[in-house]
Every structure is written in C-alpha cells, then in structure tokens.
C-alpha cells in the first residue's frame, strides 16, 4: 500500500533545506528525503497494540520544519529513520472504532515499568524515556520507525492508551483537529492565566487559533489580544474568542494601550536602539505560537515584568537577546504536547478537554484543503503557504471515497 516515507538522506536533506529556504516552506519536497512508496503495515509491537487505518492526517508545523530541513538537531536522537510522518490522525481500528491518536510514545507504550516520574504523574508529554524501551526512539507516532504514521494507507500501530474514541457528533475534520487542539489546551493551561489578566497570542495559524479557542474556553482572561497576519486568520481569531485581533506589527501597540504601559526609546525619532519599543509594563502572558526569533523578541518586548512567555510554536535554533528576560524576571516556558491537566480541581486528560474545545468551536472548519497521498508535493507546498493562500489546516485524505474534491 502506498505511503510516504521519510529517510535519512543527508544530500536530499540539504537540498530540501536549500530549496525551501529559497522558495518558501514546503517547496523543497520534490528534492527532499520524503518519497511515495509501497509500504507494508507495521508489525504490532505487543498485545495491547492496535492497527489503525488513517482517515485524515494533518500536516503540522513540525512536519514542515522536518521536511524543510530546518528542524533542530536536538531531535536527532529522539526520532528513528526511516519513518512515516503524520501524527495528527483520525483513523479506524481493525474492530471498526473511529479513533483519534494521541501520538506521544511514552513509558506505557514502550513497555517501561515502572514509568518515569513524569509519566507516573500523567505528564506523558514530558516522558523521560522516549528514546528507550522495546521501541525505536521516537517522540511520537509519525517520528518512529516502528509505529508507522498517518501519511500512509498501510496504517500505523498505536497502544491502547493512545486511542481516543471519536464521539458520534464529530466529523472526521473535527476529529483530525483534536491533536493540535490538545497541544493548545495544554499551552493555555500551562500559561497559568489568572482571571482578568491580559493575554497576547502571537500567530494565528492552526496552533494560534486553537490556542485562542482553548484560552477562551478554559481560562478567564480580562483581555485576549491576538496578532494575525492574514485577513482570514483575523476573522477566525475573532470568532474563536480574541477580543482584538491585529496584524502582528500592530500587536505591541495594542498591548501597550491595553496595559497602559509606557514604551522605552520611542519618544524621539533619532537614536533608536535595538531596545526601542520595549514596553515598561505589558501583557501578563504572551503565548508565542510562531516560534521564531522575531516572535520571541516581540514576546519579550511586550510581556510585563515577572510576566510569562509561553512557547507553543516549535522553535529551532534562534538568536534572541535575553537581557530583558533577565532584567524583568520574565518566565519563559515551553508548552509541548499533552498528558493530563488540572482544571477546576479535577485531573483530566488533555485530549478529553481538546474534544470539548473542538466540539464547542466546530474546529473542523479549520481544515481548508484535503489531498490524496499521491499529490503530497502539492499538499506540503499548500501547507507551507497556508496563511498566504487563505488556508489553515491542510490534511491528507485517505478515506476510500473522499468527501468533496481535493483542493
């Protein structure tokens, strides 16, 4: 059966990096290490494992970073080649259950007992054994050579604890949005937003939009501001709960006004320094859903002293001046994946909360385009230019009969 395979091929990796750097994200696929090939279904690693046939599988920002050859070398030891990408998956088990996959391969799927301290606490996203156990290294399904991934008709294997049944009322499009929404739920709760606080969200791609929805549903910010580059993103951000949505370059001014802050170095035209524009006050929490040097710089410039910057977008190697972080005692925290969360004194699985956020906001509407695997180069290019092309989430459609034409 046909599937997409990502191999360790350094010349192709370099070529992809070069071409995507020149032509834009997603444009290096033709020369990169991803190829369409015939694949066998992966072996079941153990008794509690299941074969899953994907219905829809999303293309995520981290997938794009991998395909573009710009993901951090940090990941080299926690992925295993060759792997089938795709970790945002709604699929069907062999016993015909429609499920969403929780792709993190933590201690239990790896057969590690007792589980590491993080897994013991339910924080599977922070698993300390992702390179160990009876499976090859791989932080998630979609990055592990033993499990397969969502971008293959040959399917994948997933452990019991990684399966989440999809409620009847949810469409496949809704369901494929659950995994990214779970990331957003975790980020929204990790941000520790107190009632009435001012929160700024940078970026309004899939992660930014789902984060806005999650913050609005699960926390009580006083004001939720969002920076969104493209008109359709601004419309969606407002619909999902942002109080004010602005182009990214206008966001710091909106934060300044909301926080009634002063601003350093902006009162004279002459002599502007790199520090000019740093707010003296700022947002209580800035959630960076972009994850590059510019977004991080902007986040640090508009968070208040002792405020919190939460990195949700996956950063690579970036160069950022951290003087203001030090001087203003800002907390910079990452927010990766999911596990369990404490909400209203109750411990709940992040995915359960994500299902609620998806259903409440009909997030399936964020799925903008569906492609067959055969058109993977177009699909990846579309995902790489999603914002500019008026899209949010681009997915592979592996259903026997696709609903609606591919766009």
């Amino acid at each position, binding site marked *: 059966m046909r599937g997409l395979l990502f191999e360790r091929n350094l010349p192709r990796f370099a070529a992809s990096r070069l071409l995507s750097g020149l032509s834009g994200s997603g444009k290096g696929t033709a020369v990169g290490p991803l190829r369409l090939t015939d694949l066998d279904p992966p072996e079941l690693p153990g008794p509690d494992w299941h074969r899953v046939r994907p219905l829809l599988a999303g293309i995520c920002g981290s997938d794009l970073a991998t395909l573009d050859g710009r993901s951090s070398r940090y990941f080299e030891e926690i992925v295993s080649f060759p792997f089938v990408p795709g970790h945002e998956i709604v699929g069907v088990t062999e016993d015909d259950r429609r499920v969403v996959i929780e792709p993190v391969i933590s201690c239990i799927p790896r057969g590690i007992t007792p589980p590491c301290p993080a897994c013991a606490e339910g924080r599977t996203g922070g698993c300390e054994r992702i390179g160990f156990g009876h499976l090859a290294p791989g932080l998630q399904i979609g990055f592990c050579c033993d499990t397969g991934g969502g971008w293959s008709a040959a399917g994948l294997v997933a452990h019991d604890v990684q399966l989440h049944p999809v409620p009847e009322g949810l469409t496949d499009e809704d369901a494929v949005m659950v995994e990214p929404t779970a990331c957003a739920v975790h980020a929204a709760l990790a941000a520790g937003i107190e009632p009435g606080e001012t929160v700024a969200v940078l970026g309004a791609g899939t992660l930014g939009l789902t984060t806005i929805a999650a913050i609005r549903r699960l926390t009580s910010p006083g004001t939720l501001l969002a920076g969104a580059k493209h008109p359709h993103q601004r419309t969606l951000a407002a619909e999902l709960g942002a109080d*004010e949505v*602005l182009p990214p370059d*206008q966001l710091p*001014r*909106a934060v*300044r*006004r909301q926080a*009634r*802050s*002063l*601003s350093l170095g*902006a*009162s*004279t*035209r002459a002599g502007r320094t790199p520090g000019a524009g740093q707010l003296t006050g700022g947002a209580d929490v800035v959630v960076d859903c972009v994850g590059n040097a510019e977004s991080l710089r902007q986040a640090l410039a508009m968070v208040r002293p002792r405020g919190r910057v939460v990195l949700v977008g996956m950063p690579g190697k970036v160069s950022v001046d951290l003087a203001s972080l030090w001087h203003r005692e800002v907390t910079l925290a990452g927010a990766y994946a999911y596990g369990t969360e404490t909400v209203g004194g109750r411990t709940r699985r992040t995915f359960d909360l994500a299902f609620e956020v998806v259903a409440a906001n009909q997030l399936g509407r964020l799925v903008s385009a569906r492609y067959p695997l055969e058109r993977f180069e177009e699909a990846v290019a579309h995902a790489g230019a999603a914002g500019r092309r008026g899209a949010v989430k681009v997915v592979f459609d592996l259903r026997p009969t696709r609903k609606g034409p591919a766009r």
Partner: protein
Amino acid sequence: MSPRPGFILEVDRSTPPTLFWHGERFSMEKLPVGSRVIYAPEPEAALEDPIGAIRHALEHPLGDSPPLSARLTAGMKLTIAFDDISLPLPPMRRPDIRQLVIEQVLDLAAEAGVDDVVLICALALHRRMTAAELRHALGDRIYDAFEPQGLLQQHDAEDPTNLVHLGLTDQGEDVEINKRAAESDLLVYVNINLVAMDGGHKSVATGLASYKSLRHHHNAKVMTHSTSFMDQHKSELHSSNWRMGRLIAAAGVKVFQIETTLNSDTFPEQFRFLQRREWEWSAKDRATYLGASAALDRTPSKLARNIFQSIKAPHRMTSVQAGEVEAVHAQTTANVYRQQLVAVEGQTDILTMGLPYICPYNVNSIMNPILVACLGLGYFFNLYRGKPLVREGGVLIMSHPTPWEFNPVHHPSYIDFFEQVLSQTTDPAEIGKYEESFATDPWYIHLYRTGNAYHGVHPFYMWYWCAHALEHLGAVIVVGGDRAAVRRLGFKPASSMADALEMASDVVGRDPSLTHLHTPPVMLADVT
C-alpha cells in the same frame, strides 16, 4: 490697483485644465463643461506700517478696555499667551506676527516697570513647539531673553499643579485653564486669525484649557451642530467657547485680546502660479509649473515633503485690533471676511478639492490619513457660510496621495487610532467610547508633556471635525490615494478624476453639477 474679489468661473470648452493640489504634487484636471471653479480673492494690501498699527491698536483698544499702557503697572503679574505652530499656514516669513506684536507689548511692559512676565504658548492639546519653531515665531531677542530663564513656557494641559478650575457654565461645562494665566493681573492673548474660526473667546477657553474643559466642545455632537464653525453665529463650537469665555471673565480673569489678520499671499515667488487663475498664467507660470511638476515627479516623497515644509509664506498683516475680546473679535471677523468671502449661488452635487501638503497639525511633519480626512472634511468642507457648498447627500471628491504613513514623534496616538479605532468604526458618534482610554493613556500623556506629541485624544478631535461633513455627504472619494488607507477612512478610492466622477454618478446621478474649490489660498464661500 485694488485686489480683485473672488471669482467663479464656469468651465467651457476653451477653459484650460484646472490645477489640483495633490499633497506635495499637483495635477491638471479637465473639468466637465458647466462646472464651476471658485477662486479666492486676491491678496489684500498689507499694512504699510505694521509696528505703528500695532502700537495704535494697543493704545486705542476696542470695547470696554483701557489702553494697554494704562493696564500695565510695576509689580503686576503679566502673562502673554500666543498661538502655536498651527498658525499661520504655511508658516510665515520672519518676522512672524507674534514677534511683532509681542515685542510691542513687552516694550510697553518694560516702560511701565513690569518685571514679572511669562510667555505661554497656548497649544491646548497640540504638540509642544521645538526651540527652532519658537525662535521663528517669537524672534531671537524674545526667545533668548525668556527661554533660558524658564519664562517662555508651553501650556501643559496635563499639569494639575498649573491648572485651575474656574467653575461650570450654565450648561454644566467645566472651565479649567492654565493657572498662571488665570491668576495673572493681566492676560494678553496674541492671535493670528488665519480663518474666521480663530480667535475670540476660543483663544483662552481652548488654547489654555485642559482636556476636562475641551471635551465639552470637542466632540461629535457639538461639531455636527457647527454649521459651519467658520460662522460663529451658527457654530455650537463657538457658543460653548463663548459661554466659557464669559465665565472666565466673570471669574475675574482680565484678558487683553490682540487679534491680527493676514492677507492671502500664501506662496513665494517660485510657486506664485499656485495662487493665479490658470487662464491668466504667463509663459513663466506655465514653465514654472511644468518644471516643478516634472521635478516633483522624480523626487522621493520624503524629500518632496521637506521641500514643501520649508516654504515660508509671504503673508503680511492686514489689520490688528486689541482690547475687549468680543469687540475685538467682531472687527477681526469682519476683516477676515473682507479678505476671504466669495459669494456663491446655490449648492452643487459634487464638490472637488485638491488637498495640499499642509494642515494645521502637520507643520514640519507628515500629513497622515487622519489629517487628510480632517483637512478635506473638517476644514475645506466647512469653508462656507450659509449653506455647505455641496448639497446634502452630495459627493466630495478630494485629491491627495493619502499615504499610510505617520510621524511617530508627533502623532503616536494617531497610529493606534487608525489601527485600532477606525478599523472598528468610522462613525464619529461611535468612536467616543474609545476616547477616554486614549485621553488618559499614560504613555500619550508622557509624550505630550515631554516630547513633541499631540495629546492622545487629538486624533478623536480630528475625526469629530469631520462629523458635520460625514453626516451631510452621500459619499467621499479620494483620487490617487493609498487604497487601503482610503478604505480604512471609510472613503472610496479612485485612480483618476474620471473614475471618481463615474463613481460619484452612482450617488448623484448622471448629470450632476460640479464645483471645484480652488484653495489654497484660503477663502470662505458665502453660499446662498
């Protein structure tokens, strides 16, 4: 030879194209046959002896006021307030009228032995003037004598220690003005009355007031009921200021008002064609126009802006009167009308105007989109007495590049207003809900007080200035403007005058009447 009055040309087939201002550039437009073009009266003759005229006015005051010399005594506290950078337009050549008048007042004060004298720039919520601008307005002698000692001040509407609340008018309006001015034994106010709106009680009640006071008449409701604010008797803006001015007088503040009028000699020799009627252009005028246009077309915008902002107008004083506020202002207004009024019969379906590079709030700065709107809909639209030039439901076509560009030093709150308020609503009545947050924003207050920034609330005032026009007009079209900026203003962009006329026909029909307001120089249409 006496100057010719204003003139209304009816365009026929032989009429040459009409000059339109377009920011720092010009265009020549062939207007439809039958269109009217209103030309300003020619500049009046200037006073031959302005110093003598000033001395005479000070010693022969109007209304119930003793001569200035009789009101000056040793040991008294004297404050001289003067108009800020927004007047005149363009800035005039040295010596500025403020310098001429204040020098005479100071001479009289010195003769009387007055040594407690403070000069205050009555800037209300405008930006502080720079040292160079103050030097230009006051002359080196005054600047060097007063500024180093801290006796040349700029009104600070956000300094609670230097404001005094004098009470409420019978309409419940707060009257809060500069404390030094209010507590002086005599407040001399030196005006430049470029247009009929300037001066009178508005000088002190607005120029030296706080936001708490200004908000009573700088709002959408008042501006909608000022039809127009160039006609004091039909202007709620003025009614409010008059109530406040009378309360100021009743509170014991003694004001000696000095008002001056200018002729309409607006542009220096190299740009003299700008104030001539096109069919009377000489070969030299045509050559100058062609040369200037060709050069400007190749000049980067920033450089073109600098060139135009360096223009100093050859304006000269045509009258000066002093004494009691209302008596002085009545005479001044008559003098302004004498220079500027043009009788116009009937309204028009379409009013066209070319907007120049300057308005009261961008001297030495950028004409941002909000100021473009204010100049067209606030100022030029209101250059009427009687009825608006354009009929209710008619169309206003303005020509201006309207760049999405702001001076961050002068207009910081304008940027946020444009991005965060006008993106939500362009309804003057509705924007009021955002006003207080801008007015009390500590950053804008800081920049207003310590930098050269207009107050945080100022862009709201610019939009309120447009309220009457916005309510009256069926559509506003901007020719040659940045399309995104024009749309943000709520107006329609057109790429050419022909396009604009085509678009206007959707509103006013296929055979509309058209009138072009050929200004600057400034004029006032007396529409019957």
